[in-house]
């Protein structure tokens, strides 16, 4: 596919009919992170300097991924409103060679019962990370934030993921 100029900051936003706390839990609670999108266990030590680890699922492991597929450090944790962290993927030699990226989740609950989730991914100096999270990595353009947030919305609103 034609590659356009690589974006250094990407912004994704979705409205979910769920409380801010539910959205926060779905992002930060390892039991919840195993229920949608890549379904890997994600562990956060929710304090500045705390560690972040996303683990491969058994299926991913059987395809040769490392046990920890993404890691990082928590920069700011303000439950259930804001989470800032670094995010470094171990998908390939190329992503390993790139510097850690910076990821911000902003969660704002509205009186209407909807919660706005904004994901800001700062990808300075990490063009391969940028392609992957923008779903432009592989030819089929799978995965990425659009898909993760779409699946998260489906899961929180209906109890079902898109692939189930």
């Amino acid at each position: 596919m034609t590659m356009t100029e690589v974006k250094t900051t990407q912004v994704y936003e979705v409205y979910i009919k769920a409380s801010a706390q539910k959205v926060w839990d779905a992002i930060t609670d390892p039991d919840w992170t195993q229920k949608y999108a890549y379904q890997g266990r994600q562990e956060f030590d929710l304090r500045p300097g705390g560690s972040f680890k996303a683990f491969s699922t058994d299926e991913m492991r059987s395809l040769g991924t490392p046990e920890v597929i993404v890691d990082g450090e928590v920069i700011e944790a303000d439950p259930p409103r804001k989470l800032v962290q670094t995010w470094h993927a171990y998908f390939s030699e190329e992503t390993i060679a790139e510097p850690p990226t910076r990821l911000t989740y902003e969660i704002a609950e509205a009186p209407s019962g909807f919660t706005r989730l904004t994901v800001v991914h700062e990808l300075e100096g990490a063009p391969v990370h940028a392609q992957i999270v923008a779903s432009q990595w592989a030819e089929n353009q799978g995965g990425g934030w659009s898909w993760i947030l779409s699946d998260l919305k489906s899961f929180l609103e209906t109890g079902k993921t898109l692939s189930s």
Partner: protein
Amino acid sequence: MLAVVNDDDRVFRALADPTRRFLLDQLFERDGRTLSELESELEMTRFGVMKHLRLLEDAGLVVTRRNGREKLHFLNPVPIRLIHDRWIDKYTERRVSALLELKEELEA
């Protein structure tokens, strides 16, 4: 307000205009632009561009962020993905599981 911005209607309406599709294409090529930058690509008044951007924002297709004194416009692809996942996928019955996609990505 929040309850309706998610409406697919708004997304389809926002996309049903060549100027607005052009603005989205501009942001796809290079994201995080100011109004002035976007305006310079179009033969249109600043007010006209603002109106189009407002409709795109209402549909959730454009998200603005402040960076100091600048207001930057970002393309938000999630509403299009939602329509894809809930409508297009349904009719094409292309049920590729996430893991299959990941497998393909890893083997690519």
